[in-house]
């Protein structure tokens, strides 16, 4: 019985695999007259069931939907000439998989990359410079926004096509803000302009509503702590990394002020405790807090919720950039970009196809901005169409005030997580401040040293 079962299962599986046919290799030869194939590697998920055949990005919503539709449209426009094979990897281990592909020589032509990761790949000479390619493709780098330029230009060369800027926002439940007397006559939130004002408003909110002012993902999401912390440091014109990007120093007055503010908010009960990413979002959507600190990517979702009559956000959702609490307007920001991987398009036709795809994506930066991410083209950020999108007029300032970790700091995602973990340890778990700062420096510096060996 067992043997029969095993044999039947093996036979069935083999038939199924055979029936699916062999892997179709990318067209590496340029001499053929057929369409040239290029591989595009990305995250953002898969949504074939909804958008598998849609070629009209304006009918799509969400990151996955819009991007899938854009690639469908490109393939349709270039039928018989270019085929873009999308290869989707999940967001968490995306770079592990990209690295595995590079080691194996299975290099995609084009890949999506966080601008914070770009420096590592540039230093390892794994991506192509694009100055000449962009000139040839008609991509005007003079149209890059300030933040986009800082993200993709390194050592005087352009290394990626900036696709968006994403940043750290305050999302408001205006029903609760009104109840606390923290709404203006035109329905906007009253924003704090200093740490003291913020603390006073948070106390006022708690007294009026009995609820905490904030939710942010303080547990299990180190990057959220790091982004808030770095924003507060940047707003004091503070720096934590050495100019050469090889070490970190957090024994500064700016760091202490940032931590003091976060600690006071947490200790006074102005932050809903123990929230991870979905928990913090749920608290906000259920009307348990007044303000959620999270990124640009949730705007569409919260607007949809606010349209539901039974939603705690009903007709009362607002979003603003992280308010300026210190002297300098600055907000932690990063961006998604597209890179041309070295060795991924060995044939001139493939390279031309990859550049044509980049030009197409550049032309459609405005479509992508509907996700909530901010455009990387000045002409789009200032366009009437973009400014007419909800909240975008206020958010557009981030394209110039956004600050990223400097590009010569390696393995920024790990560094960001290490910073966030230790900030969380101090704020949430009450690790002694000096010990926390010492450990933060020790761990990050060890990571940075490893990058340079």
């Amino acid at each position, binding site marked *: 019985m*067992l043997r029969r079962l095993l044999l039947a299962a093996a036979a069935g599986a083999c038939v199924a695999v055979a029936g699916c046919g062999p*892997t179709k290799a990318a067209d590496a030869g340029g001499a053929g007259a057929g369409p040239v194939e290029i591989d595009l590697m990305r*995250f953002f998920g898969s949504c*074939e069931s909804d958008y598998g055949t849609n070629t009209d990005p304006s009918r799509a919503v*969400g990151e996955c939907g819009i991007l899938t539709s854009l690639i469908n449209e490109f393939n349709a426009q270039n039928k018989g000439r270019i085929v873009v094979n999308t290869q989707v990897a999940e967001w968490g281990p995306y770079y*592990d998989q990209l690295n*595995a592909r590079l080691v194996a020589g299975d290099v995609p032509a084009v890949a999506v990359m966080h601008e914070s990761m770009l420096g590592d790949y540039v230093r390892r000479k794994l991506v192509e410079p694009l100055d000449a390619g962009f000139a040839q493709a008609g991509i005007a780098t003079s149209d890059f926004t300030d933040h986009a330029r800082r993200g993709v230009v390194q050592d005087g060369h352009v290394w990626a096509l900036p696709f968006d800027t994403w940043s750290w926002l305050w999302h408001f439940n205006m029903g609760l803000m009104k109840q606390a007397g923290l709404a203006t006559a035109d329905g906007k939130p009253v924003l704090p302009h200093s740490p003291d004002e913020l603390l006073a408003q948070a106390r006022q909110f708690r007294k009026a509503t009995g609820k905490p002012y904030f939710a942010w993902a303080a547990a299990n999401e180190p990057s959220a702590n790091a982004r808030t912390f770095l924003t507060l440091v940047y707003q004091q014109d503070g720096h934590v990394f050495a100019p050469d990007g090889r070490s970190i120093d957090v024994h500064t007055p700016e760091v202490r002020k940032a931590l003091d503010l976060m600690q006071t908010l947490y200790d006074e009960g102005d932050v809903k405790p123990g929230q991870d990413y979905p928990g913090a979002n*749920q608290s906000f*959507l259920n009307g348990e807090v007044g303000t959620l600190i999270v990124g640009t990517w949730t705007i569409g979702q919260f607007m949809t919720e606010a349209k539901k009559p039974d939603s705690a956000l009903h007709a009362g959702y607002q979003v603003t950039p992280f308010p300026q609490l210190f002297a300098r307007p600055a907000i932690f920001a990063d961006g998604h970009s597209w890179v041309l991987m070295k060795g991924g398009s060995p044939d001139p036709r493939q390279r031309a196809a990859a550049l044509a795809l980049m030009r197409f994506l550049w032309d459609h930066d405005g479509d992508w901005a509907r996700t909530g991410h901010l455009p990387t083209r000045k002409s789009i950020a200032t366009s009437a169409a973009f400014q007419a999108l909800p909240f975008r007029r206020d958010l557009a300032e981030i394209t110039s005030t956004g600050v990223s970790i400097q590009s010569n700091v390696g393995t920024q995602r790990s560094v960001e997580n290490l910073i966030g973990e230790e900030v969380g340890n101090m704020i949430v778990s009450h690790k002694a401040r000096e010990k926390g700062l010492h450990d933060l420096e020790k761990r990050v510096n060890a990571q940075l040293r490893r990058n340079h060996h």
Partner: protein
Amino acid sequence: MIANRRSGFDRAVLALLCVLAFAWMLPLLWVLALSFKPNDFLLSRTDAFLGGPTTFANYLNIFQTSLVFRWVANSAVVAILQTMGVLVLSSLAGYGFARTEFPGRRIVFALVIFGLAIPGQSVFVPLHRLFSHWGLQNTYAGLVLPGLAAPFGVYLMTQYFRAIPAELEEAAMLDNASRLKTFLRVILPLSLPAQATLAIFTFLASWNDYLWPLVIATKPDMYTLTRGLASTQTNFAQSEGLGFLMAQAVFAGLPVLVVYMFFQKHLVRAVAGTGTRSRGDK
């Protein structure tokens, strides 16, 4: 009186076990319940077990992913080949260690056992470089071969073969059976319970493996099911795509459940038998 007390004690133990079993099942039931809820509903409510809207959309989304059955087939091929390979290699090696004498046997066996103490992650990078160098990226060989090194399997089979009375083997040899024939006809059939245990453990580990397929299978049509389903998740699936995520967990877990249902009697018998084998226990 004693019987009554005993019966009361048994009932109490049974009640406790039921409570513990329910507590153990609760997360699984929760996963199942959430898999039938719309994603946008779960944005704000993950505590609703039975209330709220119900949908099959999450499962439909899985079935409408064009490569999903390819991924199921890939997982089946890899898990079955790996299971068969581990059974063959572990049985041969286990028999060798248990029943034959050769120079350095103890040292080699110690080395195999030492393999149990080495976490797979620690050899991950060199293993990947090796397989990439051999051109095995995106191949079934690349997916299957690393799993054939199974120190646990060798250890299990060695211990099992050692417990089989030597007289059975000697009797076969007196009847002029060769060592191979003795192994195939006498010893191997006696080890079926252990083989079943090893098969189940290996199949489950292979079916559920995510990390190795993550780096060795980078073309979507070579993804295994765990790998493929994960690739379809959006960036913040734990929040905005929770129902889909739960449906994926149920879908990926179903074949494992089926395998367990077919093989569980062998598993229970083997696990119980390894501690209490007697000469008459075949």
